[in-house]
């Protein structure tokens, strides 16, 4: 019954979109406001229908209605309740509905909050929203319907269940967080283009779209970092980023959105770069759709495989129409986008933001080029050529380092132009700190390596420059307030926007601390029998025992390894496991081995252990140990970035334009 309601809600939403389009068309001819109001209600009704359909599917997943193909495929009676919920986005049909669900929630907020203040954007926003909803509802209704019943000649006694690797809390939060970021770009796209079409690039508009972009950025950042965290702690290859097409697809919109957040500040302050901002805001969404196309079409081989059905051509058609639409309106309204002001000097705050944009877009281009290179090379000379991590690192690392320094230089520059004397006095202290940290680093941290040294200097430079900014605003607020705590509070809260930005920048410098560690990673693969030991990276690894245990849903071989440091002290014991899921299955093909890692994690380094195979006959285990320095700084940096962004987003009392 519930599943019929859900299915019906999905059908109705498709019909409602068609009627909305009809009323919009009618409005464009008659210009009678009533038709615009009707289409607004139509869209709101679509959103509620999609939400209803999603809740119905959720209900079916929770009650294990295996008459639905989707439910049978991704859950079983044994699947824990929590993971029955996450099965909602575990497969193609569910994830598409989930996409539309999130888009509905965003659209409801956009229609009821943002558009209430900017009526002039209504018509073109509705047209674009209808088109985008139309596409996704078409997919959900006709191509991948989650309410599809199993074929009538079979009865499913128990479902497939969710892959044990996915039954992990991080993996449960990562996809929806990333989705919230990805789908949020829809609103940026709609908002940017509708302002362009309706010729209303107002001050209110730029402030509102900036707030939207902060929300989207927060989710995108959180989603990407969570993905890396899951890969590092679950997958057992010892890294968090591999330049895989799927990862790149999430990085590209992030880079462009970050560029937009910066360049929109110039528009807010000085009325410049309007055309540029429109392009950036709409490109984030286009890149999201491009990424979806890459990951769902299988056009570029990736270790992530998402889908069985091929949605590639449909997404390509959707993407092309969006690009054409954007291009058409961009050129048609080009004269509207002229700047109110000019950039006066290389050494100005505006200049700093421009360099930032240049670098972020270069990185995006490099990632895009590398990701799509197999397609390009095949088109040119018929050979599919892939570029590896070396390519991405070789190009992006030096450019990223320039960005790191730029984060410190930016705050030292004034708007319009910075005089030579100010420049010198501003740069003095950060430069001094940067050079001394470089010297200290070279003395204490061994053999010369260029990138780690430059990174270390960059971090010192940027952190000093940001602290200096905080010190200045503290002084200012101290002169108005008497007590120290109230001065700190008013300093922090008086200009949340700016301070939030600086907190994000501190978070990014922490990420760079983690990146330094990558240059010093070492690893070793070896085999040991109980009682034996091996010396590696200044530690002794001693295998005490390998025990076996039958547990609820798997069989585990548990190793017990002592890690002994140079002074012969026991540093820690590691217990990496080799597990066999579905071990009771007579068919060995259905059994699934899984290496459960054990990580000894400190701020200085992680000792990462993998139990990769067990030879029962010889009672011998095969292990891999990795020493990964400074990885924890990445996660802390990620948290600081998200906190900073939320801090910047939180509206201050004296502003009257509300939350978004």
């Amino acid at each position, binding site marked *: 019954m519930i599943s019929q309601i859900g299915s019906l809600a999905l059908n109705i939403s498709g019909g409602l979109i068609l009627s909305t389009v009809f009323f919009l068309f009618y409005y464009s001819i008659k210009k009678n406001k009533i038709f615009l109001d009707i289409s607004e209600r139509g869209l709101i009704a679509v959103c509620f229908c999609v939400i209803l359909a999603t809740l119905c599917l959720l209900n079916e997943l929770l009650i294990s209605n295996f008459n639905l193909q989707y439910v049978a495929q991704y859950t079983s009676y044994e699947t824990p309740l929590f993971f029955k919920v996450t099965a909602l986005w*575990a497969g193609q049909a569910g994830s598409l509905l989930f996409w539309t669900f999130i888009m509905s929630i965003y659209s409801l907020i956009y229609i009821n909050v943002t558009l209430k203040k900017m009526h002039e954007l209504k018509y073109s926003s509705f047209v674009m929203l209808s088109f985008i909803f139309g596409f996704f509802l078409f997919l959900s209704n006709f191509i991948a319907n989650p309410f599809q019943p199993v074929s009538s000649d079979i009865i499913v006694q128990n479902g497939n269940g969710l892959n044990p690797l996915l039954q992990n809390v991080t993996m449960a939060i990562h996809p929806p967080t990333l989705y919230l970021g990805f789908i949020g770009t829809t609103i940026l796209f709609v908002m940017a283009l509708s302002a362009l079409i309706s010729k209303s690039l107002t001050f209110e508009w730029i402030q509102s779209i900036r707030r939207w972009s902060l929300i989207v950025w927060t989710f995108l950042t959180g989603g990407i970092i969570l993905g890396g965290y899951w890969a590092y702690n679950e997958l057992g290859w010892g890294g968090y980023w591999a330049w895989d097409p799927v990862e790149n697809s999430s990085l590209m919109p992030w880079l462009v959105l970050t560029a937009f957040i910066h360049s929109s500040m110039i528009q807010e302050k000085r009325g410049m770069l309007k055309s540029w901002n429109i392009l950036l805001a709409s490109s984030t969404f286009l890149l999201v759709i491009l990424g979806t196309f890459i990951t769902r079409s299988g056009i570029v081989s990736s270790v992530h495989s998402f889908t069985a059905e091929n949605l590639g051509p449909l997404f390509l058609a959707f993407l092309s129409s969006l690009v054409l639409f954007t291009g058409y309106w961009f050129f048609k309204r080009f004269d509207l986008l002229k700047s109110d002001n000019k950039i006066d000097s290389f050494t100005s705050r505006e200049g700093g933001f421009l360099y930032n944009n240049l670098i972020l877009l270069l990185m995006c281009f490099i990632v895009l080029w590398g990701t799509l290179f197999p397609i390009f090379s095949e088109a040119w000379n018929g050979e599919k*050529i892939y570029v590896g991590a070396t390519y991405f690192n070789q*190009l992006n690392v030096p450019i990223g380092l320039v960005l790191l320094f730029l984060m410190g230089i930016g705050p030292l520059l004034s708007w319009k132009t910075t005089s030579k004397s100010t420049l010198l006095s501003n740069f003095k202290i950060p430069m001094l700190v940067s050079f001394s940290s470089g010297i200290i680093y070279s003395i204490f941290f061994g053999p010369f390596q260029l990138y780690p040294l430059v990174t270390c200097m960059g971090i010192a430079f940027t952190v000093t420059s940001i602290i200096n900014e905080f010190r200045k605003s503290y002084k200012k607020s101290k002169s108005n307030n008497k007590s120290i705590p109230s001065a700190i509070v008013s300093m922090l809260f008086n200009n949340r926007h700016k301070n939030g930005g600086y907190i994000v920048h501190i978070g990014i410098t922490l990420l760079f601390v983690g990146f330094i560690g990558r240059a010093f990673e070492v690893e070793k693969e070896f*085999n040991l029998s109980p009682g034996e030991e091996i010396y590696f990276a200044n530690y002794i690894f001693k295998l005490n025992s390998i025990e076996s245990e039958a547990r609820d849903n798997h069989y585990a071989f548990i190793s017990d390894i002592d890690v002994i440091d140079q002074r012969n002290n026991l540093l820690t014991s590691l217990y990496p496991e080799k597990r066999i899921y579905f071990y009771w299955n007579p068919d060995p093909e259905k059994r699934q081995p899984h*290496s459960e890692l054990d990580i000894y994690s400190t701020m200085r380094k992680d000792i990462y252990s993998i139990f990769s195979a067990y030879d029962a006959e010889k009672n011998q285990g*095969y292990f891999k140990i990795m020493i990964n320095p400074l990885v924890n700084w990445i996660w802390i940096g990620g948290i600081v970035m998200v906190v900073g962004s939320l801090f910047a987003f939180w509206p201050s009392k004296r502003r009257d334009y509300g939350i978004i």
Partner: protein
Amino acid sequence: MNKIYTSLILVFALIVMWTVYLTNVKNDDSLTVRYYTIEELSTKQVSIANVKVGGLIKPNSININEKDQLEVSFYVYQGSDSLKVYYYGIRPDLFKDDAEVIVAGAFDNDLIVAKELQTKCASRYEGDLKNIEKI
């Protein structure tokens, strides 16, 4: 055109050209790796230092060295073509018959000596329905 914009565009263009040069013109094996289908490779009688191949593991072809469990050879196949792969190192958990793998390494006369062995990531699980009964 403003001087600043011109110089920025110039820098952008230079790096873009450098990127294109790196990937296209400069034949650098550490940067690029050529992707072959199994069919293409199985007809070639040459040695290539850097190849990448994707396919399925041929059932019953996995041969693990009894003395050293890290040493393995197996066949990857695609349609009717197949190729022998040799690999030494830790294998991914999902490595088993009919698993989809991506292999990168050196190719020499029908044998790929793999440096990298990846199975498709388990981010999604789209198996067939089991435990089903026909009426």
